[in-house]
């Protein structure tokens, strides 16, 4: 297990003159330098795009939230548990926005046991409701990594081979209470091709380092709340797929949305399948999505038909993932003096005021800093490339 040499710890290295990086501006403030350092790390992370690597599009992700005694620490406001739950709600929305055909489940661990909050599902509303309810839960006892992981394994091992199986653990305690040898469990995780990543809230724990290294995940310890959010959002992007994961053709249905009104002669009110779970919803409705195989009605997509088991999606859901498959190339940074002819940004028509401008390598369009961030974060397509018909 320990054949790989571990990287040297920070105190074992030489002196770093970190004070020389920071420079004060004329008012003695460090704000500009700090912002620039953060901006550079953000761009570096954005530039680490994988290129021509196969990505795992259909993901089954379990999130394990530590609910032990250490989560009541107030170093993250108001306390660690509430801050984590709030960030998880944002994570859920972003996750289903970027990966519409994936599923997420929630597990909490406290008092040396693990409990499943929500099962694997593709609908964010259920998870967000469960997260809101969990805010009032008490944090007692010690967490148990073994129990949480085996609870996740029980569901993940039945998932089909072409999906990517992942577990993300938010771990704040420095101890774990396991009923059995966790290294054996790590071996079985590796055999089942489950990728485990950990986000630590306190300090680096050796068992987590070994766990993530063996299964191919990442391990980071957060510095403050914004760093925590960044680390969490890092898991929203689809990871590179395992080399041994199988590729198969998945049978899916594309139901039509019928919007019937009361004056329609043929429309009959019917129950939808989602009311089987929650009795509080209004039962009868006129329109909905009818499964093409068994004609059972559902109210929203994507969903797995409860009667016949067919996965139902709509074409825009698949289209949402296309920008992962054809990522936009990062723009080149050039100083403003090299472009005397361009005074306006090609996208937003604003005047170019910054010292650096960004040029698209394909069409040589010139963009300002704000547009560059917007294009790479939200738009995923270059406005002037479309206009010169270079991209299809």
């Amino acid at each position, binding site marked *: 297990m320990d054949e790989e040499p571990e990287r040297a710890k920070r105190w074992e290295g030489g002196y770093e003159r970190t004070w020389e990086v920071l420079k004060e501006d004329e008012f003695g403030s460090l704000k500009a330098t700090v912002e620039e350092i953060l901006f550079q790390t953000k761009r570096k992370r954005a530039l680490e795009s994988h290129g021509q690597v196969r990505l795992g599009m259909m993901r089954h992700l379990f999130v394990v939230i530590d609910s032990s005694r250490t989560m009541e620490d107030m170093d993250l406001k108001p306390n660690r548990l509430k801050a984590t739950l709030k960030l998880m709600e944002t994570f859920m929305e972003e996750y289903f926005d970027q990966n519409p055909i994936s599923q997420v489940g929630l597990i909490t661990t406290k008092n040396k046991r693990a409990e499943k909050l929500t099962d694997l599902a593709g609908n964010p509303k259920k998870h967000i409701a469960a997260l809101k309810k969990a805010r009032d839960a008490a944090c007692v006892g010690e967490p148990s990594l073994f129990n949480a992981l085996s609870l996740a394994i029980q569901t993940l091992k039945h998932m089909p081979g072409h999906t990517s199986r992942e577990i993300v653990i938010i771990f704040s305690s420095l101890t774990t209470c396991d009923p059995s040898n966790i290294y054996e469990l790590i071996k079985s995780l590796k055999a089942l091709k489950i990728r485990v990543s950990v986000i630590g809230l306190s300090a680096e724990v050796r068992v987590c380092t070994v766990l993530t290294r063996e299964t191919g995940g990442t391990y980071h310890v957060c510095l403050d709340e914004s760093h925590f959010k960044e680390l969490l959002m890092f898991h929203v992007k689809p990871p590179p797929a395992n080399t041994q994961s199988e590729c198969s053709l998945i049978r899916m249905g594309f139901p039509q949305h019928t919007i019937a009104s009361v004056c329609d002669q043929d429309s009959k009110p019917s129950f939808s399948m989602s009311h089987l779970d929650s009795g509080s919803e209004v039962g009868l409705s006129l329109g909905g999505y009818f499964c093409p195989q068994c004609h059972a009605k559902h109210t929203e997509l994507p969903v797995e038909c409860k009667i016949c088991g067919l996965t139902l999606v709509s074409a825009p859901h698949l289209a949402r993932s296309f920008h992962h498959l054809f990522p936009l190339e990062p723009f080149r940074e050039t100083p403003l003096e090299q472009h005397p002819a361009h005074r306006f940004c090609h996208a937003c028509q604003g005047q170019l005021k910054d010292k650096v401008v960004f040029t698209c390598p394909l069409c040589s369009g010139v963009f300002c800093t704000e547009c560059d961030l917007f294009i790479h974060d939200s738009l995923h397509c270059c406005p002037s490339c479309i*206009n010169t018909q270079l991209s299809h």
Partner: protein
Amino acid sequence: MASEDEWNLLVIVMDVNPIWWGQQAQREPEFTLSKCLDAVMVMGNSHMAMTRTNKLAIIASHCQDSHFLYPSKNWTAGDGAGDGAMDEAPNCGDGKYELLSVANNVVAEEMKRVMSTTEVKGNSTDTLLAGSLAKALCYIHRLTKELEAGEEIKSRILVIKTAEDCARQYMNFMNVIFAAQKQNILIDACVLDSDSGLLQQACDITGGLYLKIPQKIALAQYLLWVFLPDSEQRSQLVLPPPVHVDYRAACFCHRNLIEIGYVCSVCLSIFCNFSPICTTCETAFKIQLPQMMKSKKKKLKQST
């Protein structure tokens, strides 16, 4: 009534495909590009006249490029780099609100410049609608960033479409639609000629209105009735009902619309029949064979 701190931005994207408008001038001489522009200007003026905090932007979408007609770069720069026409006082003599008359003049000038200078090169006869929408989104994003503390902005985009859809722009179009949905920007569509599936999807996903106009001459009437009220006021008006959007996917092999299909797990391409190799990403699929059952060994009865 909107409060003083809430800005309302309307971006009008006009399709000025010269080929379609040229054919239109021969089919129906009563309704030409200048009549259409008049109707759009009526709509723009009404929008700016409603409240002081309403803003307007107009983009012309051509086969070669998209141009901002209003606000114009030459006009806002103010250093005389543009034509000399803007130096004279924009006085129409009929007592119109000066902002509106300036806007009308600028739009007319820019439109003349766009139509006369842009050439149609090669085989590109499709309107670059996705590019204009992308530029509109960047412009809205810039204005949102330039707000001061306490101010809000609500934006929507109105697309006036004439020519047909370009299938090659599907992916860029979908990216733009999802970006608009994330920023809570409505996309409305006013279609003059043939139905556009892409715009129907855009309006459905972002929550806007889609309307195919039966009579082109009455364009101004439709614009003022349906598209002038903003999203809050629309709930209190009786507007055309939403259209039924066909969300079925088209298979990659025959381009037929299918209800049940097979999706490749690597590249998400859709096929109507099972095939052992994906034609887009050339992955070989694992075929599920029926499981081999071991024959049970019968115990030999010992003969006594």
